[in-house]
């Protein structure tokens, strides 16, 4: 009996270990926001986004610290945080969802995918299905996606008293390389 138990025990361990091979992490997701405005374009980039992707289950999550978005103009950055995103209250933009297509880790290539889930910006969640690409290259993966976020969808108010008009639509670009999760870490 104890023999059977230990074999089961071991196989469970192996099972658990294999399960973890399907989890990929990134702590250097690059996020770009871009919007054309009459006086000056709004552009910022963050390299501090994090993401976890469970290939087997298709679960994927992103977490972008709003304050890590760096602008060319420091004042614009401050206004972005203080007046629009209210990053003291809502420090992260989040996405939590599922990749709708299966990815074959053993086959190199670019997989066009759609991802469905909740996009949480400025504390307001919005159900979205977003197009993207997942690239598999010798067991490592990278993702890329470009999509629009509407300010009004997330209750981001644009005041009247602004000389520079701010676009209602912000183009968001997400890109990053993932590493397999090692539980021994």
């Amino acid at each position: 009996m104890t023999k059977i138990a230990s074999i089961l025990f071991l196989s469970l361990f192996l099972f658990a270990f294999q399960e973890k091979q399907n989890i990929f992490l990134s702590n250097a997701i690059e996020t770009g926001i871009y919007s054309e405005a009459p006086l000056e374009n709004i552009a910022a980039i963050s390299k501090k986004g994090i993401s976890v992707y469970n290939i087997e289950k298709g679960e994927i999550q992103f977490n972008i610290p709003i304050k890590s978005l760096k602008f060319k103009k420091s004042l614009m950055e401050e206004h972005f945080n203080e007046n629009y995103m209210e990053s003291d209250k809502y420090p992260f933009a989040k996405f939590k969802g599922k990749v709708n297509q299966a990815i074959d880790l053993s086959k190199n290539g670019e997989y066009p995918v759609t991802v469905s889930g909740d996009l949480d910006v400025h504390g307001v969640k919005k159900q979205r299905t977003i197009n993207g690409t997942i690239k598999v290259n010798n067991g490592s993966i990278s993702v890329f996606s470009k999509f629009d976020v509407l300010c009004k969808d997330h209750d981001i108010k644009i005041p009247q008293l602004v000389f520079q008009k701010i676009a209602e639509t912000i183009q968001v670009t997400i890109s990053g390389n993932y590493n397999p999760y090692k539980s021994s870490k």
Partner: protein
Amino acid sequence: MKYKSLIFISTFFISVGFSNAQEVDSLMNQMSPKKDEGKVIATFKSSRLILSQTTTMVKKNNLDFKVVHRFGDIGGDNGGSKTLFGLDNSSDIYIDFDYGISDRLNIGFGRSKYSQLLDLQLKYALLQQSEDNKMPLSVSLLAKTGFEPQKVVQGYYANYGERFSYLGQAIISRKFSKSFSLQLSPTVLQRGKVLSANDEETLFALGAAARYKFTKRFGIVADYYLIKSDFRKNNPTTNYYSPLGLGFEIETGGHVFTLNFVNAEAIVENNFLPNSTSSFTKGQYRFGFTISRMFSFNKEQPIVKQH
């Protein structure tokens, strides 16, 4: 025995299954930076309120260009309709450049109409208030040298050194909420030229300033200095008053406008601390404004590329 191991195995199986379901969430939590690690931003909209400078710094590679204006007395002998309530006169005009050497070190240069003062200053952000309140205050240190190049009657300045004045200030601020910020500034001013034999060469003062925002872009500010001086307190010939300013602050994206009413004629500390002889109650207060425009010399942000 059999029963026991079955329970053991099934619990183990359940726990493994459970941890897998939780895996993505818990990994996200582990990796997420804590919100509280951040520094509190935008305690004040600008590095200057009405009278006081603030703990707010000009960011690295940014140049803050300010024009500060004080008109003439609104009421009293020099005010009224004959000067369009002081708008015909200007008691002081100040042109100011502040540059961010780093996010924590600023250098500033300015020129006043009042005694033609030229000034050069350094401001260093010693402490910055953090969101988790481990650091409850922001503290900036300010050192300023003023120089009066004005041509005056022979003998007004006994020597060249009398043209200089030195200001040291610790600016201590706290952003209590999104809308309310308060600051205190213990100040010492060392002057080369004093008004009379009894006048203190070294003046101590305490500044107090507050900002309350009604909306994201509109707020009111109050600014006050208490000056410790026996010479000023009981002066038989001239009345001295504590400088007090009240005003509105409007931010419009690239600019910050401050519209204010203030009794002090001069704009720079080196001038208004020793020389404020105007009284609110006698109508000797004036309209003033500050326009701040930020220029950035940072590089363009690169666009995110596909990996």
